[in-house]
């Protein structure tokens, strides 16, 4: 839509003077489409190959030397084997609990600190803000080993806590929420204050609904980060019943490399729900990634 609106005036402006250019335009449009479609095909082929191979029982014994995109023996056999040998339902439950709680906590703590930094007046505000911001420059990998020992000392390894606690607050979310809340007019908050609302109530009932788009952006990014993380779960959980989907997939992939069909069925079960969710939410997901400029 916006493309059309942007291009329309330029097109009409050039058309009278350069009518002879139109076939060339048409040809270059076609060439662009062909290149882009070929690229898209390359992006899709591995997914399609994985899906069709996962449906082939024979793939566990021998694979065709020329790849086939339709199995001669389509069945759900590999899925039955994969679901029988891996507690994939449990992995999903673990991922949902961990991703859900970290995201809820991260949004809440980012928003409430962001509110204080945007609208609060208290001594030491800029110093505290610098403390929050400085965490942006500390990569997780720098602190992972002492963090692991800390979790072990607290007796939290092999618990959900170890997967949740380190990711509840951070500089990035606080910064993003402060920016969003700064743009809310002071008069709105002052009016609520005069009506006798407490600061928390103002935060909960006025500020949070007004920055819903930023919360959605931050939430989507955090879900992608936490869902895909494998380094930290590998360190703090060795109990199979606590594996996340990504971790379970990584360990299954490393141990059962021979049974191709089963391994790919496992991968499909780990990827497919995320892709389906993405197809419904793609507009918001892409917007989130672009607007914050942060990679998932």
């Amino acid at each position, binding site marked *: 839509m916006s493309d059309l609106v942007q291009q329309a005036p330029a097109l009409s402006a050039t058309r009278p003077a350069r009518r002879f250019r139109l076939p060339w335009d048409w040809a270059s*449009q076609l060439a662009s489409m062909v290149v*882009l479609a070929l690229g898209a095909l390359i992006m899709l082929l591995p997914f399609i190959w994985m899906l069709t191979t996962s449906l082939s029982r024979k793939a566990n014994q021998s*694979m065709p030397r*020329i*790849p086939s995109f339709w199995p001669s023996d389509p069945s759900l056999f590999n899925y039955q084997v994969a679901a029988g040998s891996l507690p994939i339902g449990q992995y999903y439950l673990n991922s949902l609990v961990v991703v859900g709680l970290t995201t809820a906590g991260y949004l809440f703590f980012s928003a409430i600190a962001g509110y204080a930094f945007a609208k609060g007046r208290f001594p030491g505000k800029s110093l505290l803000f610098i403390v929050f911001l400085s965490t942006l420059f500390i990569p997780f990998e720098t602190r992972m080993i002492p963090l692991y020992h800390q979790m072990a000392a607290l007796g939290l390894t092999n618990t959900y806590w170890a997967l949740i606690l380190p990711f509840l607050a951070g500089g990035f979310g606080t910064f993003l929420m402060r920016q969003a809340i700064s743009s809310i007019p002071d008069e709105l908050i002052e009016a609520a204050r005069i009506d006798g609302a407490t600061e928390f109530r103002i935060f909960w009932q006025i500020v949070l609904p007004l920055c819903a788009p930023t919360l959605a952006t931050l939430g989507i990014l955090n879900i992608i980060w936490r869902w895909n993380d494998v380094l930290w779960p590998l360190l703090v959980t060795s109990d199979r019943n606590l594996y996340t989907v990504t971790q379970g997939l990584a360990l299954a992939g490393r141990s059962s490399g021979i049974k191709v069909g089963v391994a790919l069925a496992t991968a499909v079960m780990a990827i497919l729900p995320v892709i389906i969710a993405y197809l419904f939410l793609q507009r918001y997901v892409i917007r989130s990634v672009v607007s914050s400029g942060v*990679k998932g």
Partner: protein
Amino acid sequence: MEPKSSANRSGFGSRLTRLRRTLVWYSFILPPLLLILTFIGYPTLQTFRQSFFTRGMGNAETFAGLEHYGRLLTNQIFWGALGNTVLLGVAFLGIVIPLAAALASLLNRVKRGSAPLKVIYFLPQLTSSVAVALMFNYVFQPDWGLLNGGLRALGVTEVPLWLADPRLSFTGSRAAATLLAVWAGLGYFIIVILAGLQSIPRDIYDAAALDGANGLQTWWHITLPSLRPTFIFLIMTGTVDALARFGDLWTLGGPGGAPARSLQSVVMFMFQQGFESGDVSLAAAAAVVFFIIVLAVTAVSFWAFLGREFRAVR
């Protein structure tokens, strides 16, 4: 709680109200601040401390000075891992940025169909690096993998070994790991460059068209320079991500980066030293070096980026 009028009348009451208001803000900051100090600040300081100490029997620690840094900098495996990380990062960014710029430019000029194409190119980005690596482990399988099968179908008889070949070559394990990363990361780079393209004001193009510039000239002299901030941003964040690479390489080759450590990254080195060999001090020294490199990259790109923008303003 107190009626407002009385607070306004007496000086003490109003000071109490102001104090309470200030305390409310602290109560908002305190829980996240404690979480950050406990789970980010404390372990980061511990990393620095551990790199200067040696842990002996029963948690007794002795000061070691720069001993662990000396061991680190003479450790061939560390240099190998650092070399791999830099090589893989440079190769990835060197391929993905021009490719994404070209595809984004095409996407920006096609009049229809760009929405579904964007979704398709972005698809791998949603798939965890672990799942991508698992899938590509089979795509690169020499005997029956998708890639070699495709090459055979095209008539190539001498097919490469890809992930089974640890040598430094365009068809070895590092090349395979780079192709995998490009496939997985392309969509993100396209989307960000596309956003940059769409923020270039149209009247610059109209002016260029009036001056008689052709499409390619316009692209080279107007589009690419206008994308400079986008490219700097992508190189900066892309470098930091490349330095921290772990999930896909671990899935392909374990913490040792098989075959023959050709895929071991710095983070995998830290992981292996700290958890498999139990050499926490060496891992901590590596973590400090890693931290300094990431900080330097961030600082240089901030400086390059902001320096240019400030000059432009002046």
